[in-house]
């Protein structure tokens, strides 16, 4: 039944002193085109119904008529803020099916690219979260630093945002000569800005009062909703695929998993999810430094390219730790060069399903902050 009929049906049944506000598709703080139908009693939110699909770009139908390498640009466009981390599980799945062994140097390039992309993604997440709370300066600081990372990616893969850089069996281009010290330089800048934003925004009295003790997500509810990434770790669970299901060469680096501890408010509130992202940026810097140190300089990155990409008949589910959580790909292949089915398990799609549960009873302005702390990207929600 149409949107209007469905609402009229509901509208006639609900008691009338509650107001139904529409935080619609065009809204500055829904991080894209998401519609939240909020039932408000005075100023207290009593119920939230998210409506999605405004950016449903039929990814899975497109994949059924594209060959395997042609799908990689579409996979960049799922979570368009961290494109490198999207491509990794897809490429790893195909390499596992066709059991291709990727040269050492490629593994290191992939780790560095993914961790740089994780920093860029967390910078946007914390920047927009600060803007939801009204702080505009961290947005400008973080975007200035993100530009440095984008320049590295531009020299590496030729694009600023959607890279199409990972290939089955390697990466499309080798690193340019000054890659190493440019990365180290970016890490120095990122650390300096993070320290600045730590006391400018994160430990700022007003920001703490605004974001602590709201949007509390208990660990067992998060587990039942299969949340992952900073949203899950914010509730105090030490679950990170890089450590629990170590893929690629993550076992060679030592880094720890930041977890929400309820420092200023309750464990699992918006502030915790945000501080987990800030600490994760620091951990990514540590990984990049170690990876740059251990990286073998010689070796051809396109050595392990298969002649033709025809994985054997079968299916596989592979997932990797993206900045928003574990993004998984379920690929069913029928032996031809086109997949029969590719299902992308979007992390934002799963993390967003928590919103109706954790935003009951808060003020309306806090709902915007709770949505910002979940850090969703609508391309991944709607695919």
């Amino acid at each position, binding site marked *: 039944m149409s949107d209007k009929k469905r609402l009229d049906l509901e*509208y006639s049944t609900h008691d009338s*002193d509650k107001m139904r506000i529409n*935080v619609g598709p065009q809204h500055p703080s829904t991080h894209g085109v998401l519609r939240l139908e909020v039932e408000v009693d005075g100023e207290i939110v009593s119920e939230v119904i998210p409506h999605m699909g405004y950016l449903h770009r039929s990814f899975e139908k497109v994949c059924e008529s594209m060959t395997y390498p042609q799908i990689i640009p579409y996979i960049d466009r799922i979570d368009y803020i961290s494109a490198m981390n999207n491509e990794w599980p897809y490429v790893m799945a195909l390499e596992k099916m066709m059991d291709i062994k990727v040269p050492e140097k490629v593994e290191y390039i992939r780790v560095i690219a993914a961790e740089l992309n994780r920093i860029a993604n967390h910078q946007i997440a914390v920047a927009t979260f600060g803007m939801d709370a009204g702080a505009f300066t961290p947005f400008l600081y973080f975007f200035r630093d993100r530009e440095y990372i984008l320049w590295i990616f531009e020299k590496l893969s030729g694009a600023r945002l959607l890279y199409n850089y990972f290939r089955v069996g390697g990466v499309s281009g080798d690193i340019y000569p000054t890659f190493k010290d440019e990365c180290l330089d970016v890490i120095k800048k990122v650390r300096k800005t993070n320290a600045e934003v730590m006391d400018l925004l994160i430990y700022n009295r007003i920001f703490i009062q605004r974001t602590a003790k709201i949007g*509390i997500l*208990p660990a067992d*509810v998060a587990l039942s909703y299969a949340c992952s990434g900073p949203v899950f770790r914010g509730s105090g669970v030490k679950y990170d695929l890089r450590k629990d299901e170590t893929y690629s060469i993550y076992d060679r680096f030592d880094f720890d998993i930041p977890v929400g501890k309820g420092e200023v408010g309750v464990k699992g509130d918006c502030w915790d999810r945000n501080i987990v992202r800030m600490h994760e940026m620091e951990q990514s810097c540590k990984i990049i430094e170690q990876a740059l140190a251990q990286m073998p300089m010689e070796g051809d990155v396109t050595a392990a390219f298969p002649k033709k990409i025809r994985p054997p008949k079968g299916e596989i589910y592979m997932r990797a730790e993206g900045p928003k959580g574990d993004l998984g790909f379920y690929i069913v292949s029928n032996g031809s060069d086109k997949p029969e089915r590719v299902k992308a398990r979007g992390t934002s799609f799963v993390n967003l399903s928590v919103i109706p549960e954790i935003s009951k009873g808060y003020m309306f302005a806090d709902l915007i902050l709770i949505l910002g702390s979940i850090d969703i990207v609508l391309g991944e929600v709607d695919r």
Partner: protein
Amino acid sequence: MLSDFGIILLYFILGAVFVGIALVAAAIVRPSHPNKVKNSTYECGEIPIGDTWVRFNARFYVIALIFLLFDVEVVFLLPWAIVFKGLGWFAFIEMVVFVVILMAGLAYVWGKGDLEWERPKPQIPRLEDLIIGKKKQ
């Protein structure tokens, strides 16, 4: 010559004329293509459903009343404040009595709890009421 009130009338007319010219000129010059969708209320891009005549919460009405009360009090204070130096002690004491009476009214309203604004009562989700319980072995 014009009396004092004449000058005030002149000011009033001049004000009205200036504002009038600005509004009328704008109304004449600006393009106007009204249509049904443009005149409908802006609802973040959605089609507005239901009417906007919603029964508001009663506490907004109470706050409006209390505001009106103290606004009128200030209106009385203003002319007194200008001339109270010439009127001597008697006017001062009278005004103090007036303010004290109103303060008593404020104390009553405060005591009765009408100024209490609503506090958020967060309902933290509990897993028990979301999924069915453990299976008996």
